[in-house]
């Protein structure tokens, strides 16, 4: 299964049937500039598509991370709390934010594929 993208500039990588890894795209990372703090949700929290689940602070401002899917959070990348710059260096890999067990896997179909996302950010 390939990586999907949201209009809020998150990537969603489906690892197994109902398990996904979520992070922010390189485009989002570049727009935010130098990150100085990431506030992560707690493991066990529920997330609902479209709701804020995390706050990303750059030197400039605070931005919300909006859940691209619904489910329960089974793991968070706590390295980001001390080293938010990992997101800047490797937003699509080491800089992942959370792992979610989907409550409605069909939500994945509403996300964009890479080609659609690339034309979305060019608009």
């Amino acid at each position: 299964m390939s990586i999907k993208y949201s209009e809020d500039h998150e990537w969603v990588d489906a690892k197994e049937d109902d398990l996904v890894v979520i992070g922010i795209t390189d485009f989002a990372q570049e727009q935010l500039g130098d990150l100085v703090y990431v506030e992560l949700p707690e493991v066990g929290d529920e997330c609902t598509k479209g709701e804020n689940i995390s706050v990303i602070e750059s030197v400039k401002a605070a931005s919300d991370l909006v859940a691209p899917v619904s489910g329960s959070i089974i793991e968070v990348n706590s390295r980001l709390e001390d080293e938010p710059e990992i997101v800047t260096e490797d937003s699509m890999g080491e800089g992942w934010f959370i792992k979610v067990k989907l409550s409605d896997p069909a939500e994945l179909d509403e996300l964009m594929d890479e080609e659609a996302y690339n034309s979305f950010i060019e608009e």
Partner: protein
Amino acid sequence: MSVGSEIRTTPFHKMHVDAGAKMVPFAGYEMPVSYPLGIKKEHNHTRERAGLFDVSHMGQIRLSGEQAMSALESLVPVDIIDLPLMKTRYALFTSENGGVLDDLMVTNLGDNTLFLVVNAACKHADYEHLQHHLGASCELELYDDLALLALQGPKASSVLSALAPEVEEMTFMTAMQLMINNIDCFVTRSGYTGEDGFEISVSAQDAENLADILLSSDEVEWIGLGARDSLRLEAGLSLYGHELDSSHSPVESSLNWALSKVRRLGKEREGNYLGDNIILDQLENGSDTKVVGLLPEGRMPVRDGAIIQDENGNQVGYVTSGGFGPTLNKPISIARLETKFTNSQSKIFALVREKKIAVEIVKLPFVKHNYYRG
């Protein structure tokens, strides 16, 4: 500068775009917020080497006339009459209620002429304020054809003195008229970063040429408004609209140091500026609020607007500016607090997204000033 269009540009606009700057609207101008280096590296470059800032959006005003110096004293709580030739002083326009209308730099050019640099967002209101109160006795000009560059950082002096050796004689808050590669420049040794440095006023027509000359040094990089803000925050310098506004006096904004002795109660030229009764009273008896530095516990930035509470959850103030200090590598804030809490040992907290963050009151600046005083 372009006139008539809704959003204006400075003479360096094309250079910023060519340098890959992220441009944003700011005080009616399209200005560079950051360059490809990014805010953190731009900030550090200024602290370690030399940063070049386009501050042409700021207002540059000439005030002249036989009574110009005493006239300006009627609008600022600062000693202008005894400001020596080619010296620069920090001042504040006050209002009838003791509030601050703007902060500014004043330089005595001689021949009963003063040169003022004021905030971009306030410049037209400042000009009208001057015109209204002093228009009958003084001649006024708000320059529309001047650019302003700031060269800031420990290498600023060596970069500039390689082009104009006479700047080595300048100390902090002095001014000089000089030529840089046949370009007429008006230079003050001042700035808004806490570092040694210069502000250079130059005609719009020579602006790009001067910037090219300065940028040809390996020490110099363009620095955007983002780093300008983190640098001034670490240096504990007030920003109009944040630490300063029309509903708080200079005393309430902890700027007592800027209120000249000779204009204080019982002194030679006591008061006689707008709001003098209120400000002089607060100087004697204190004010209800003060502006202080805060160090939040942990890594989360506490930004402007955050409420400050005491242990019992009562509001005791709010953050006026806050963010992340790259030099300190931790979050820093400036806040307006009830005076009785500024010296108390009781714990205070900032509210960020409903979380209570413990904050420690500290002396400003966060990063020590490196001004060149000779």
